[in-house]
């Protein structure tokens, strides 16, 4: 019962993430934070950021590697957690 509902919910999530790609075929899909910095220079052209990131990933690839690493650490634990739950079911 729950399982069925979860599958439906997960399909909905995938749909919500993929549908924009069809709807906005021309769009660049840039990050919303880059747009915000454009907006700031529009409102206050004088403003200069007074601090730079301590370290920046040298390339888009390294950045996506680190983002993927973050997600996989999280996903790894979630898998461990639910695996543990399922495991206790059989030992009782």
């Amino acid at each position: 019962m729950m399982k069925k509902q979860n599958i439906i919910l997960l399909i909905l999530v995938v749909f919500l993430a993929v549908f924009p790609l069809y709807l906005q075929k021309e769009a660049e899909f840039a990050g919303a934070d880059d747009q915000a910095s454009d907006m700031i220079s529009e409102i206050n052209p004088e403003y200069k950021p007074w601090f730079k990131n301590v370290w920046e990933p040298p390339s888009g690839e390294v950045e996506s590697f680190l983002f993927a690493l973050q997600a996989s650490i999280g996903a790894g634990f979630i898998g461990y957690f639910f695996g543990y739950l399922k495991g206790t079911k059989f030992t009782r």
Partner: protein
Amino acid sequence: MKKYVMIAYFFAAGLLVPSVGYAMHIMEGFLPKEHAVVWLIILLPVLFIGYKQIREIVTCHPEQKMLLGLAAAFIFVLSALKIPSLTGSCSHATGVGLSAVLFGPAVSSVLSGIVLVFQALLLAHGGITTWGANTFSMGVAGSFVAWGLFKMTTTMGLSKKVGIFLAATVGDLTTYMVTAGQLALAFPDPVSGFWTSFVKFIGVFAITQIPLAVCEGLLSVVVYNTLVDNKERGFSTLWRQDQGEHE
């Protein structure tokens, strides 16, 4: 008792920051120094309370450690995934609603703070100087709204499932509204002031966020379902709030 202290604190925070208590992550160096400091000061008491609560969980309820890990892992995953949105740009969810509902807003503020340090140092996403403001919007504002909404909807008699969906979705949106507010406070429109800027930043952040917030709500329900499905297997003390009411 603790609850009243929390509520009083948020009222005080509301008075200190007259315009909005509402913020995607603000980029490094993009908040004037005074603003960065003020957000950090507002944030610190919550982090302190959250730290104490986490210590209590770890020492007094070691059986909840796994669940705390799950809440943190959920924030890790969701805040790492930049998902395309209807507006043709990308943003990411926060994952904070789930931990706010499970452990309360203070604990979930600490968890968000940890994720934001990781992203600021290693990913150049957000920043150290804007960490206070970002942790406030994602941790404090987002989770406080999520937690409050969950309490409200379940008290009203709605099912926990609906409650957690609304809490996670609205909590996610709140984070981005607050980001917009924080930026508008720092960069009011030279002609027409705060609100014009606020609407502009909302246009960048909040609209993009709507479908992602719904995704977050749905995923939170998936985790909830799985937890409830296994409730009899060692997670009977699943909802910390319920447990508090019985004490």
